[in-house]
C-alpha cells in the first residue's frame, strides 16, 4: 500500500471510537479525584503525599508535548538518531538539583518561582518574574492547542477550532474539579499510553521494514539503511548551522536543562507533591535515567523509520520532513491502531496543557490574587478562586491557540523569540540566587532586565553573538542569525551583569536568606520540621488506625516557628499522632519527629496519607492514635492498616 493510499484509509470508525472512548475515560477518571482536593495545598500540591513512581510516570507525559512527535520525527528524518541529543544531556546539573534546588524549594515551602524571587530578592523581582512567566506559560498553552488542532485536522479532517475547543473543555473540567491530584493521575495514564503507543509504532515500523522476515529482518534493514552520520547519537560538531552539536549543547544541554529543572513551575509543583525530598530525588533519577531515553525513542522513531524507508526506496527522498510522523504512522499502522496512536498524541497534548494550566493558576493565585487582590481570606475562598481561575486559564489558553491558528507560523516565531529572550536571564537569576550567597537583589533585577534587553537587541544585531559562535566555529544560519548560540550569549551577559553589580551592591543579610541558598540547608531542614532533625535510622511499621482525641491534634492546630527562621518562612504545622512505645523504639522515633502515615497499599501511591508529628507514646498496642480531623484530611479508610515511616 502506498503512503497516499494508507493516508486515505485513516479516520475509520474504529479510530473515532477509540478516541471518543479515550476522551470520556480521561474526563471521568480526572474528575473522580475532586474528592481529594480539600484545600489549596491539596489543589496545587496534592497535599505533598505522593510516591516517586506516580510522579515520575506523570512527568513522562508532561515532558512530551503533541508537537514533540512532529518536531523530533522531523529532525529524525533529516538527521537520523542524533534527534535524540536533547533528551540525553540533562545529567550534568543533577548535583545542583538533587542537593541544591530540590531541598531549597521543598524545605522552604515556596509555592511558586515568583515567590522564591520575592523571598530571595524582593517584590520588584517577583513582579518581573510573574509577568515573564505568565506570558511564557499562557503562550505555551496556546501553542500546544494549536499544534494538536493542526495534527487532528490533517489526520481526521476535524475542524481545527472544534478540535481545540473539545480538548480545552475536557481538560478544563477535570483540572478545575481535581486540581493537581487529577493532573498527576490522568498524566500517569497518559504517560503509559503515549510511551506504549510510541514503542508500538517503532515495533510495527521495524516489522514493516522486515517484510516477510518480521523483526529479525526489520532491525538489520533499519540499521543498515542509515548512514554512519545518521546512526551516531550526536550531529556534526559545529555544522550544519541549524542543527549542530555545540549549539544544541549550550542551548538545550545547559540553558534548557536549567530551565527544565529550576524554573519550570509545573515541574516544581510535581516535586512539591512528593511525600518527601528523597521521593523527589527518586523521581528525577527515574525520569532522567529511564523515562527520558524512552521518550527519545517514542518521539523520534517515526523519523528514523522514515529515513530508513528512503534508503529502501519505500519513501521518496524529497518527502517533506514535517510530514514524516504522519506518513510513517499511516504507513505502518492498521485502522484502530492508528486511533490509539492519535489518542496518544492527544494524551501528550492534554498532559502538557493540564500541567501548564494548573501551574499558571498557582502563579495567579499565589502571586497575584492572594497578595494583591484579596489578601487575608480563608483557604476555602482561595480554593474556590483556584477552580474558577483554572477554568479562565483554559479559556484564555484556547483564545491564544486561536490567535496562533489565525496568524500561523508568524505567531510561533514571535513566541519562540520571546522564550529565547526571557529564559536565560531568569535562569541566571535563579541559579545565582540559589548557589551564591553574595548575589544581591539589585543584581538580580538588572540581570533579568539588562540581560533580557541585550538578548532582545541581539535579535536585530546578530553580530553581537558572532564572537561566541566563532569560539566554536559555528557559522550563521540561512537568515544570518546565530539562533542556537543566543542562549550562551544570554547566559554569559546576564551572568556578567549579575556578578559585576553584586560586587558593588549590598547583599541581603544571611538571616533573611536562611533556607533559600545552598549553604543553609541544615537550617532549611530544621525550619521545615519545626525542630532539630533526628537522623537515626529505624524501621518502618504497619499498624491499625484508631481515632482518639487524647494527645492528638488536627492538622494546623499547632504552628511551630523556629526562633532563627526568617519572617517569610511558613511555620511548621502538622497533626499530632501517637504511636505505641514499642513501635517508637523500633522506628527510633522521638516525640516531635516528623512522620508519614499512609495506607499500606503501596499501589495507591500515597493517595490516602498524611504528614504528622509524633506525640507522646501510648500503651494500647500496635495502633496509631489519630484525631478525627486528621483522619479525614488523610482520606483514610477505617478498616485499612497504615504504613508509618519516620522522615527526620
Amino acid at each position: 500500500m502506498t503512503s497516499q493510499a494508507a493516508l486515505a484509509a485513516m479516520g475509520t470508525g474504529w479510530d473515532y471510537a477509540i478516541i471518543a472512548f479515550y476522551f470520556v475515560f480521561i474526563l471521568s477518571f480526572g474528575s473522580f479525584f475532586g474528592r481529594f482536593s480539600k484545600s489549596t495545598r491539596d489543589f496545587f500540591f496534592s497535599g505533598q503525599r505522593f510516591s516517586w513512581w506516580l510522579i515520575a510516570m506523570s512527568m513522562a507525559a508532561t515532558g512530551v508535548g503533541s508537537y514533540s512527535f512532529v518536531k523530533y520525527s522531523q529532525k529524525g528524518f533529516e538527521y537520523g538518531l542524533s534527534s535524540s541529543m536533547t533528551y540525553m544531556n540533562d545529567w550534568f546539573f543533577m548535583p545542583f538539583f538533587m542537593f541544591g534546588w530540590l531541598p531549597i524549594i521543598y524545605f522552604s515551602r515556596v509555592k511558586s518561582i515568583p515567590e522564591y524571587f520575592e523571598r530571595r530578592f524582593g517584590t520588584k523581582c517577583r513582579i518581573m518574574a510573574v509577568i515573564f512567566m505568565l506570558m511564557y506559560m499562557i503562550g505555551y498553552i496556546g501553542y500546544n492547542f494549536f499544534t494538536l488542532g493542526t495534527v487532528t485536522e490533517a489526520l481526521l479532517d476535524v475542524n481545527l477550532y472544534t478540535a481545540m475547543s473539545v480538548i480545552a473543555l475536557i481538560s478544563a473540567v477535570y483540572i478545575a474539579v481535581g486540581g493537581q491530584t487529577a493532573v498527576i493521575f490522568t498524566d500517569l495514564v497518559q504517560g503509559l499510553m503515549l510511551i506504549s503507543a510510541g514503542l508500538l509504532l517503532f515495533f510495527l515500523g521495524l516489522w514493516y521494514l522486515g517484510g516477510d522476515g518480521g523483526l529479525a529482518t526489520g532491525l538489520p534493514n533499519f540499521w543498515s539503511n542509515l548512514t554512519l552520520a545518521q546512526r551516531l547519537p550526536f550531529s556534526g560538531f559545529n555544522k550544519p548551522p541549524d542543527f549542530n552539536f555545540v549549539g544544541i549543547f549550550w542551548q538545550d544541554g545547559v540553558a534548557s536543562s536549567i530551565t527544565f529543572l529550576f524554573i519550570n513551575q509545573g515541574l516544581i509543583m510535581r516535586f512539591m507533591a512528593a511525600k518527601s525530598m528523597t521521593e523527589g530525588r527518586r523521581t528525577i533519577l527515574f525520569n532522567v535515567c529511564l523515562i527520558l531515553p524512552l521518550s527519545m525513542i517514542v518521539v523520534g522513531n517515526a523519523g528514523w523509520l522514515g529515513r530508513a524507508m528512503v534508503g529502501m526506496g519505500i519513501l521518496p527522498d524529497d518527502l517533506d520532513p514535517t510530514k514524516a510522523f504522519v506518513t510513517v504512522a499511516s504507513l505502518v499502522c492498521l485502522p484502530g491502531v492508528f486511533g490509539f496512536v492519535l489518542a496518544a498524541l492527544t494524551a501528550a497534548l492534554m498532559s502538557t496543557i493540564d500541567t501548564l494550566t494548573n501551574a499558571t493558576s498557582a502563579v495567579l493565585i499565589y502571586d497575584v490574587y492572594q497578595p494583591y487582590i484579596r489578601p487575608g481570606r480563608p483557604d476555602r475562598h482561595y480554593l474556590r478562586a483556584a477552580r474558577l481561575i483554572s477554568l479562565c486559564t483554559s479559556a484564555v489558553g484556547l483564545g491564544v491557540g486561536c490567535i496562533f491558528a489565525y496568524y500561523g507560523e508568524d505567531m510561533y516565531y514571535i513566541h519562540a523569540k520571546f522564550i529565547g529572550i526571557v529564559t536565560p536571564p531568569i535562569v541566571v537569576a535563579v541559579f545565582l540566587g540559589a548557589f551564591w550567597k553574595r548575589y544581591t537583589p539589585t543584581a538580580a533585577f538588572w540581570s533579568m532586565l539588562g540581560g533580557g534587553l541585550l538578548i532582545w537587541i541581539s535579535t536585530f544585531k546578530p553580530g553581537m553573538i558572532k564572537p561566541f559562535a566563532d569560539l566554536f566555529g559555528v557559522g550563521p544560519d540561512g537568515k544570518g542569525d546565530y539562533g542556537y548560540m543566543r542562549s550562551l550569549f544570554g547566559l554569559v551577559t546576564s551572568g556578567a551583569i549579575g556578578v559585576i553589580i553584586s560586587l558593588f551592591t549590598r547583599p541581603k543579610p544571611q538571616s533573611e536568606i536562611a533556607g533559600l541558598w545552598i549553604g543553609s540547608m541544615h537550617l532549611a531542614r530544621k525550619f521545615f520540621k519545626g525542630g532539630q532533625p533526628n537522623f537515626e535510622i529505624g524501621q518502618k511499621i504497619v499498624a491499625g488506625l484508631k481515632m482518639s482525641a487524647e494527645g492528638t491534634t488536627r492538622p494546623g492546630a499547632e504552628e511551630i516557628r523556629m526562633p532563627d527562621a526568617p519572617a517569610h518562612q511558613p511555620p511548621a504545622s502538622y497533626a499530632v499522632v501517637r504511636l505505641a512505645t514499642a513501635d517508637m523504639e523500633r522506628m527510633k522515633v522521638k516525640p516531635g519527629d516528623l512522620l508519614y502515615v499512609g495506607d499500606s497499599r503501596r499501589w495507591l501511591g500515597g493517595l490516602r496519607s498524611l504528614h504528622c508529628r509524633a506525640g507522646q507514646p501510648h500503651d494500647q498496642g500496635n495502633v496509631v492514635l489519630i484525631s478525627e480531623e486528621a483522619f479525614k484530611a488523610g482520606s483514610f479508610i477505617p478498616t485499612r492498616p497504615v504504613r508509618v515511616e519516620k522522615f527526620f
Partner: protein
Amino acid sequence: MVPEYWWPYVYQYGVGGAIFLIGLWLILGYKSCVLSRRQDRFWFGVLLFGFLWYAGIHLVWYLAAIYINPAVGQGGNG
C-alpha cells in the same frame, strides 16, 4: 588524530563533566551533601552512577554505529 565524529562525545563529557564536577564540589563544600550520612552517601553514589550511565550508553551507541553494519558486514557506510 581523533576522528571528527568523536568530538561531540569528548566535548559533551569533557565540558559537561566539568559542570558536573563543579556541582559536586559545591554541594560538598557547602555541606549540603554530608558523606558521613548514609543517605547522602547513597545519593552521591547515584550521581556518579548517572554520569557513567549516560557516558556508557553513548559510548556503546558510538561503537555500534561505527562497527555494526549487518548489510555491509564491516565498518560504517559513511
